[in-house]
């Protein structure tokens, strides 16, 4: 079985449009198991209920931003090793540096083409 058949991904974004765009792209890559959450806390809840291999998260979200989510994931033994792709509209050095420190696996700047998303994912998990 190809990786794309087995990979489990959680998409986190407060904007349903962005969630739709990302899940639509993932769908087109043939990735079967994609869940989505509209904020960090519910993402953590979903991951606890049903673990994933990769989290694709927006940076700028109300309440808990993408880096806080990453921090929470890295703090818990159970989710410490999950792949994390940060999507950000502003690729500020500060954000990237912090992401690096926290163990972000990759980042992708908005707007992006599906191909860009695919490449960013493959850089983390390997060929889909």
């Amino acid at each position, binding site marked *: 079985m190809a990786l794309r058949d087995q990979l489990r991904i959680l998409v986190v974004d407060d*904007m349903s*449009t*962005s969630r*739709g765009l990302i899940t639509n792209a993932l769908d087109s890559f043939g990735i079967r198991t994609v869940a989505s959450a509209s*904020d960090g806390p519910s993402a953590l809840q979903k*991951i606890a209920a049903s673990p994933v291999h990769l989290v694709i998260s927006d940076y700028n979200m109300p309440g*808990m931003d993408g880096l806080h989510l990453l921090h929470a994931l890295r703090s818990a033994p*159970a989710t410490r*090793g999950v792949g994390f792709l940060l999507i950000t509209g502003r690729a500020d050095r500060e954000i*990237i540096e912090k992401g690096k420190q926290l163990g972000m696996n990759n980042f992708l700047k908005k707007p992006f083409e599906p191909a860009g998303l695919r490449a960013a994912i493959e850089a983390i998990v390997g060929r889909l």
Partner: protein
Amino acid sequence: MSDPMAEIRASFFIECEELLESLQDGLQMMDDGESDSETINIVFRAVHSIKGGAGAFGLNDLVHFAHRFETAMDEVRTGRFVPDGEAIKIFFACADVLGDLVRASRDETPILDEMTAPVLDSLERLVGMEEEVEEEVEFVPAGIALDLGGLGDLGGGMGDLPPLDLPALDMPSPDLLSADGLPEGSETPDVAGDNDAQAALGKGFKIHFLPEPALFISGNEPLYLFRALRDLGDLTVRCDTSRLPAAEALAAETGYLSWSLVLLTEEPETAVRDVFEFVDGLCVLTIEPITNAALDGSMALPDLDVPSAQIPLAPGDSAETAPVETIAAEAPPSSPAQAAPAALPDRLAPGAAAAPIPAPIPAPAAAPVAPPAPIESAAESTEPSDAPSREAKNAPTQPRATVRVDLERVDRLVNLVGELVINQAMLSQSVTEAGLPANSAVSTGLEEFLQLTRDIQESVMMIRAQPIKSLFQRMGRIVREASAAVNKDVRLHTDGENTEVDKTVIERLADPLTHMIRNAVDHGLETTEKRVASGKPRNGHVTLTAQHRSGRIVIDVSDDGGGINRPRVLEKAIEKGLVSPEAQLSDGEIDNLLFLPGFSTAAEVSALSGRGVGMDVVKSSIQSLGGRIAITSVEGKGTTFSISLPLTLAVLDGMVVRVAGETLVVPLNAILETLTLTDDDIKQLGPETHVVQLRGGFVPLLDLGAELGYRTPEQSYVGGIVLLIGQEDGHRAALVVDAIEDQRQVVIKGLEGSYGRVPGIAAATILGDGQIALILDPMDLISQASGRTKDRSLSLSHAG
């Protein structure tokens, strides 16, 4: 819509409207002086999100503008620019233009430079606009090694992650420790862990609780203890399941679980010990105070700066050193506020588990996925009973779950429910006619059916209702633009914006309301100089309020201007030949001249109001919604226009009456009371003019049959039944009918599509027996009648 991208695009524009709304809200809060960082962030995020979405759809003009706006808001967010009132005005203008661009993009109409250039210029003058060059930040993606070998059965329920090289929870490997960023040579891992936790947590206690089997045998329940603890403060609970054996080795009467708890509280240790009083001796309990109050109460989010220095998990390392562990040991965070703290104590688990637990530690290999039951209880124990209140605090950032539905589908449902109501009425009638006893199964069943139909109808109507806020927000822009055009300082106040109104009503109110607001700013409010001269505050105020009042929506548009200049209005009306020069008009009558067609004409075209639309058009659009409009004005104090609208356009509570052999429906909310006339009640004033004496006052008497042209007026109305009708402005009239038949909810079927507006008639309906009945517009009827010159040929013959 089969193309997913088209669907996402459509939902993007809907989402934009929501973002624009919160943008307006945020700016309004900033304007009201609430410039806290969260407010500014809301504004920033709204613009940012619109930009992000627009980028994905290649809406470059929109992206470009949003980017400039976003950059300006970023200046505000970072504190480099502190906006004053003038600046916020420009931000408002930007928000308006952003909305225009969003709609233009949605409708695929061209975006012209002149739409954006003026505000961009102001924005640039305000905050400067050196286009920041985005530096390339170096980043090497870090791959993770996924062992997918065992993933074949992932679909199978438990949701556990694949091939787990489980690091023993109680014996962290050196690798893991260094990944945790513990300083080299720190004495023991657990101490470091403790300090770490203390630094992050604040005042309270770290509790470790290991129940012995005797605790359970004596009927104690850890959950209740945790609940009691929770009452003392902020409690984070973590269940240690590492001692759980594989399912087949599980002994039912042995306790395998222990708990690490972090209680943030001001209470003394004795209070915490008291909680465990009854289980004293039945458990191993350690309670240690957390002394370091590094953080204040803002526990919701861990400060990134503190831990980031301590837990850098080098991306490259993550694959080798931190394989995915079982998630089962993790108590799922139960509320947003708790999610983050729930993650923190994890790191004290290894130490906490090692120190006080005397119990044997199973070999790592034996640590299986915990069965669901204990996790459930752990999860439950982290669920604070005050969760709702916390969530209420977080409410602004936690939108309610919604479904977007095509309005057409809702309307089809509304229509079907309408048919259902009619059908149900017919069925009831048949049952009555069949002479079935009231206690028969059919009758009682039908009774329940009636109740259900009503409930369904109400629920369906609620789907169509939405807060009037969106409409009020649009009026904010009208006020800003109108006041700028006539150079007046005007502030808009809104009240009752959460009042829910039928969607169609909201849409169709936009034009009349816009016109009224422009009028208020242009004509209602005096010039600034005049205001100052008359001792009023410089700023003019326009107030929009919405409220539910006795089954109707009442929307008031008030200004604190000079009031209606009645002599001038009268003069103009005479000039235009609308009233005769000899006419003696009351104040109220003069005010109502404003609604006459032809009153406002091109002669008074101003920059604003003169757009060829007069108040007569406003009045007729309100009427077409089944609404009424009234004016009250006080000289020197201001003017209020009051619009009263039905809650829904689909159903109506009505009184079914008979007049001259015809069945008619009178809206119940117009009827103040019903009475039977006696000789003493009636006073004749002229050949066709009667009044009813009612509790010391006189009310004009109208023969409904005669008014509608069904019959000629009668000589005597003694013994007649009248409906006392009340109008918004306090005017009343008594309508004579032959009989009152029933009181029921009727489904409104509009006539306008087929017949245009018929004076005195609001709509039609289908009654239970299938008969069609007209629904009266009593107010209109009364104002028609008070003119007494109406063209009788307009009267409808019975439509059924």
